[in-house]
């Protein structure tokens, strides 16, 4: 009888232990977290797509990271899990917690990413694997109030892959309050400076020692700032989002502290794992309209100023004139590439274009070039204006002899010519000499159409007058 009781107890203990263990191992499966618990849908999917999930070499279970290692921590976590379940069931919220806590130690275990191997390792980042990166330089740097953890950068953001670093995360530190080409924003911190010639015709040609080859490196040596060509690469100020604070706080005493950077970072980022983009406006760092970016800067005083200059640089088809972008367009030289000379005009600082800028990149002979262009365009404009005025004068003289419909048609022609001419005059034709000359031809075509009909009348009149005398 006694034996029976002992046996039953042993059996019960054994069954209980087996039960606990199997419950533990069952609840530790990623499938349990992902498929049974429907609020985990998104994290589960991003995990599956990530290197830690099904598409990686080894499958790392959710609990391997989300619970710190050790049996004690596991038990602790299981109880917390029960607590979360309780919270979920007893509240209406659809999500229990947004930011998860992952201890650094979970990542740096000896079988995962031991710190002594990963801290100094040179890595390549980005789609094209072109951005060089080491963990150490980043781990040592802190933002006031911030603590650096693996998860500071390796956040799961939106629909991106679990645990990867969104590019925007880099931009906030690298470009916030840092000049484009200085300090943390220096291009060569992350990018290798290319050595291929920028002149397309020299890319495959035999090198000729007399010829000046322009590369990114020679430009750097000459002190040309990266943004004079790549102005459009960084947009945004990472200012605090206007409503970010008020989303959670209404107490004015709390809100008053919003500029205490140290406090804000320690409260939100260190303690609550807030992501940078939760409070800061995002920064964009990619190709876009490079002329527009510079133009808006120039145009901050007068909205829509310099639009004719832009039209010339871009050189879109106009009438019979085919697309003719400025010669410097392909190497993305925008306003700032040539407008480097600082001057004060009516008390306002302005950047003037100067031939010096041509010489910096090309040869000494290019000094003359700008003057030549200016002269050529001015001569052309003067010629076109003279003919335009003559057409108007002749129209005025002979309008009584022509039927009104034709006079209207002529007027329209002249106005059409004037429009094309305006782009050259107001945009200053030197911005794209070739295009400007073609625009003037376009204008002249309209003006000639009128002159060709009216001049014979004038000749006739002259002849009869001479006869009379």
């Amino acid at each position, binding site marked *: 009888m006694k034996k029976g009781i002992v046996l039953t107890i042993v059996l019960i203990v054994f069954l209980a232990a087996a039960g606990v263990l199997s419950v533990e191992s069952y609840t530790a499966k990623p499938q349990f977290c992902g498929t049974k618990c429907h609020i985990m849908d998104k994290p589960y999917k991003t995990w599956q797509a990530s290197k830690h999930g099904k598409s990686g070499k080894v499958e790392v279970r959710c609990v391997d990271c989300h619970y710190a290692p050790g049996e004690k921590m596991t038990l602790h976590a299981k109880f917390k899990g029960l607590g979360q379940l309780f919270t979920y069931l007893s509240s209406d919220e659809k999500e229990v917690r947004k930011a998860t806590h992952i201890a650094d130690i979970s990542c740096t275990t000896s079988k995962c990413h031991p710190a002594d191997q990963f801290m100094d390792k040179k890595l390549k980042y980005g789609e094209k694997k072109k951005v060089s990166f080491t963990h150490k330089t980043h781990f040592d740097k802190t933002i006031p109030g911030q603590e650096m953890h693996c998860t500071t950068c390796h956040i799961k953001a939106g629909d991106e892959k679990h645990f990867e670093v969104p590019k925007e995360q880099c931009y906030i530190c690298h470009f916030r309050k840092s000049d484009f080409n200085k300090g943390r924003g220096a291009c060569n911190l992350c990018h290798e400076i290319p050595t291929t010639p920028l002149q397309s015709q020299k890319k495959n040609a035999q090198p000729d020692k007399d010829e000046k080859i322009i590369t990114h490196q020679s430009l750097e040596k000459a002190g040309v700032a990266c943004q004079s060509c790549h102005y459009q690469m960084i947009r945004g100020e990472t200012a605090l989002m206007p409503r970010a604070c008020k989303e959670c706080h209404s107490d004015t005493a709390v809100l008053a502290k919003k500029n205490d950077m140290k406090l804000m970072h320690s409260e939100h980022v260190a303690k609550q794992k807030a992501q940078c983009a939760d409070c800061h406006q995002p920064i964009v760092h990619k190709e876009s309209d490079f002329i527009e970016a510079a133009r808006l800067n120039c145009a901050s005083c007068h909205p829509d100023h310099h639009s004719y200059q832009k039209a010339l640089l871009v050189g879109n088809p106009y009438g*019979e*004139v085919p697309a003719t972008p400025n010669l410097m367009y392909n190497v993305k030289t925008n306003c700032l590439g040539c407008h480097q000379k600082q001057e004060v005009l009516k008390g306002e600082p302005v950047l003037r274009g100067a031939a010096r800028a041509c010489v910096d990149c090309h040869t000494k002979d290019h000094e003359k070039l700008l003057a030549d262009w200016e002269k050529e365009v001015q001569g052309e404009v003067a010629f076109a204006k003279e003919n335009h005025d003559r057409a108007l004068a002749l129209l005025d003289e002979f309008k009584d002899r022509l039927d009104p419909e034709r006079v209207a048609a002529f007027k329209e022609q002249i106005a059409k010519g004037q429009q094309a001419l305006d782009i050259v005059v107001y945009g200053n034709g030197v911005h794209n000499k*070739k295009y400007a000359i073609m625009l003037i031809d376009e204008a002249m075509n309209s003006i000639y159409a009128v*002159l*060709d009909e009216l001049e*014979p009348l004038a000749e006739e009149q002259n002849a009869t007058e001479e006869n009379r005398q």
Partner: protein
Amino acid sequence: MSTNRTDDRREMLRVSGAAVVAAGLMSTSLLQPKEAGAARAKAPHWVMIMDLRRCMGCRACTVACKAEYDVPLGAFKTVVKQVVTGKYPDTRRTTIPRRCNHCEGTEKVGKMTVPPCVKVCPEYPKDRRVFITPEGKKIRYRGGATYKRPDGLILLDNDSCTGCGKCIDACPYGARTFNKRKAAGKDKSKHAIVKCTSCVHRLDEGVTPACVNTCAAGARIFGDLNDPDSEVARLAREFKLLENRDKTTMKPEAKTMPNIFYIDPDGVLADYSFDEKDKLAEYRDIVE
């Protein structure tokens, strides 16, 4: 030449009574653009036809060209290439004379259709010019370092050339090269450009190009395609040169619309090709 280069409109109007009549005709332009187009087409359309049945590879043309012009050593404006077809022992060697195609072009600069060499020249369009057609009509056009005259000739004005060499790169045929003996007009540190001008100095005096004049076999036939009675127009009709451009011109895939046509009944042209990378070697005549 000078009659075709004047910048003053009023002087133009005084050229002759015919010009005034012409201007009168042009006055319909505003209302009937089609007719204006027809009046314009009256400029000559110079073409050269190479009769491959006749060329015997003597290279008299190459020598005549060298003698006529300041063609430097090592450079050629016209060459004779050869192609061997068939299988031993039944082989045949055909000689193919070549020169700048004075391409019609398919790209637009303003109203004009131009070949790639003109399109790319940064010094085009430049000064205003007027071309007088044989009927006395005027056609306005633009000069440049490399430019197209309304009669289709692709010409060079070294005074405005900066020697940038963009036209050499742009020509798909290798018809242009640097003139190592001459400096470019606007940048003396660079070389001038050399290429066939279709002997424009002779043409403007009513004389045929030197290579045509000298070709004993009569393999080079030159003339105005717009004149239906001309030899070239007759041959073009007979051999359907215009209709079969992709068989009668060199490298049709370059889409430059060459104005040099080949009479090639055996289809030898199709067997002739050259490497784009080596295109400049095309205009170095090596007699094998």
